[in-house]
């Protein structure tokens, strides 16, 4: 019995490392909220990376700022304001793009920074107890009960919509022309995906903050995309890397006393880098080897 101790001796400290934060109620909350957010973001990130909407995610996340400020000033739930302004920005982006000769990235760049700047002006003028720092960088360790409820509603709605429309949304990402040819309303699907995007950002707002939320919306899907050729596997890998990053990131944030959103995204990025180098089929390493040794099978 005793000679097992040196082998598994590290388990004791690890156990303690895992259990100690759970003594504090706020940590239990923070961990399961960020795990939930991790699931929601990971599921959507598969669609966003395949559709090529990363920049759109960045735009919506910044555009919610004035909505959050206005909602607090009017005593409304932050989620309502954030969703309204986030979704509203995408509608305006679509309108401006259709009415001008500008390319989409330029339109997105103009509109979202405009919304964000307006939010900054409002936040510094309207007297409220909105902490701009918390909007920008998240504050899951100090999340309030009402914020948890809003996070759960927005995230639950996101998961429900995606679950219900997952095949149509995938078809819309892959081949919108075929979607149209079989009589689907692609305009409706475009706005469905945009509103789900806005809902997800509302979900992740408290955990990651608007600056880092785009990482949670893109990185898990991008990591999974490098590891598989099947969409269902991609979903599973995306959720796994995302939840691991969110839970461990919250732990690191507690133990090292660093930003929660920051450590979650750092972990996600590390997992992405690992996938990029070591992925069995699309990894940089395998591709290098394949080039040097043509006999390595390609499939």
């Amino acid at each position: 019995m005793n000679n097992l101790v040196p082998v598994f001796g590290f388990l004791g400290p690890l156990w303690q490392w895992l259990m100690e934060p759970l003594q504090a109620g706020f940590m239990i909350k923070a961990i399961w909220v960020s795990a939930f957010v991790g699931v929601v973001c990971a599921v959507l990130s598969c669609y966003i990376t395949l559709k090529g909407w990363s920049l759109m995610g960045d735009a919506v996340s910044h555009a919610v700022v004035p909505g959050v400020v206005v909602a607090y000033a009017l005593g409304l739930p932050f989620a309502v304001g954030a969703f309204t302004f986030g979704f509203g920005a995408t509608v305006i982006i679509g309108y401006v793009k259709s009415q001008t000769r500008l390319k989409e990235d330029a339109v997105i760049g103009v509109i979202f920074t405009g919304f964000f700047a307006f939010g900054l002006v409002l936040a510094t003028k309207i007297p409220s107890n909105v902490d701009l720092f918390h909007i920008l960088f998240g504050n899951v360790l100090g999340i309030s009960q009402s914020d948890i409820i809003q996070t759960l509603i927005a995230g639950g709605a996101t998961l429900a919509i995606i679950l219900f429309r997952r095949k149509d949304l995938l078809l819309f990402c892959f081949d919108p022309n075929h979607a149209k040819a079989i009589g689907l309303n692609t305009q409706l699907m475009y706005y469905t995906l945009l509103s789900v995007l806005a809902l997800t950002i509302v979900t992740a707002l408290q955990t990651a903050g608007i600056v880092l939320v785009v990482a949670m919306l893109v990185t898990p899907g991008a990591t999974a995309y490098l590891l598989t050729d099947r969409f269902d596997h991609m979903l599973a890998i995306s959720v796994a890397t995302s939840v691991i990053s969110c839970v461990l990131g919250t732990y690191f944030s507690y133990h090292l006393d660093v930003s929660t959103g920051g450590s979650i995204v750092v972990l996600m990025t590390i997992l992405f880098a690992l996938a990029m180098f070591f992925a069995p089929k699309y990894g940089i390493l395998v591709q290098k080897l394949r080039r040097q040794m043509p006999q390595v099978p390609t499939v």
Partner: protein
Amino acid sequence: MRSDTFGITVENISVTYSNAHLALYNASCYVQPGTITGLVGPNGGGKSTLFKTIMGFVNPNQGRVHVDGLSVKMAQKRQLMAYVPQADDVDWNFPVSVADVVMMGRYGYMNMLRIPSREDRRQVSESLERVGMTDFAHRQIGELSGGQKKRAFLARAMAQNSRVILLDEPFTGVDVKTEKRIVNLLLQLRDEGHTILVSTHDLASISTFCDRTILLNRTVLAQGTTADTFTEENLSMTFGGLPLSSLPQPRSLPQWHHE
């Protein structure tokens, strides 16, 4: 009932893109049901635009399109129209398999959740078999050769089981063997009563399988049976007076394929 309520009727279509480029003007043509009709014209002559207008992907500034007497939207809701895209329009890195793609042809017949029925599965495996892709059903689409890619998307159109099938440049980047194979499938589909419209700039193959031909350069210049339409005079008018030998002949390009 007038016979031209069936087939595809294009009436006086003009399309101007937002960059003020006039792609098509006053184009009118008719695709007779149960035929293979070739849409021929130079690159940039509006073939793709006319296709996109017929499929409802582009809204014309003027004119109307009817398919079997219905508006395009209604025809699509009734699964009357299938579309085989150009290879360049497909994201070949997308994580879907050949079977997934062919199953997408059946979505219009499924309920909201798109759960395939026994019939849907049967149609998919039958279509895969007809194009000879059964062994590749679980390949990711990017792992296919040029010809296999075309056949996968043709199988999707077949699974959709629609009366009208449009194929946008189906012969670019495929070898002669695959081209023959696709042509044979199209002839079979025509004999089963499908109406087929094929855009191509491969003039050499037109007379071998197209019953009718529409010549297009910014507008419809000539149309009718291939024998009547496919004349030296009409072709030089369509291709801007260039001698036929100077036209690009994609068939002569070196082919890449692996089976």
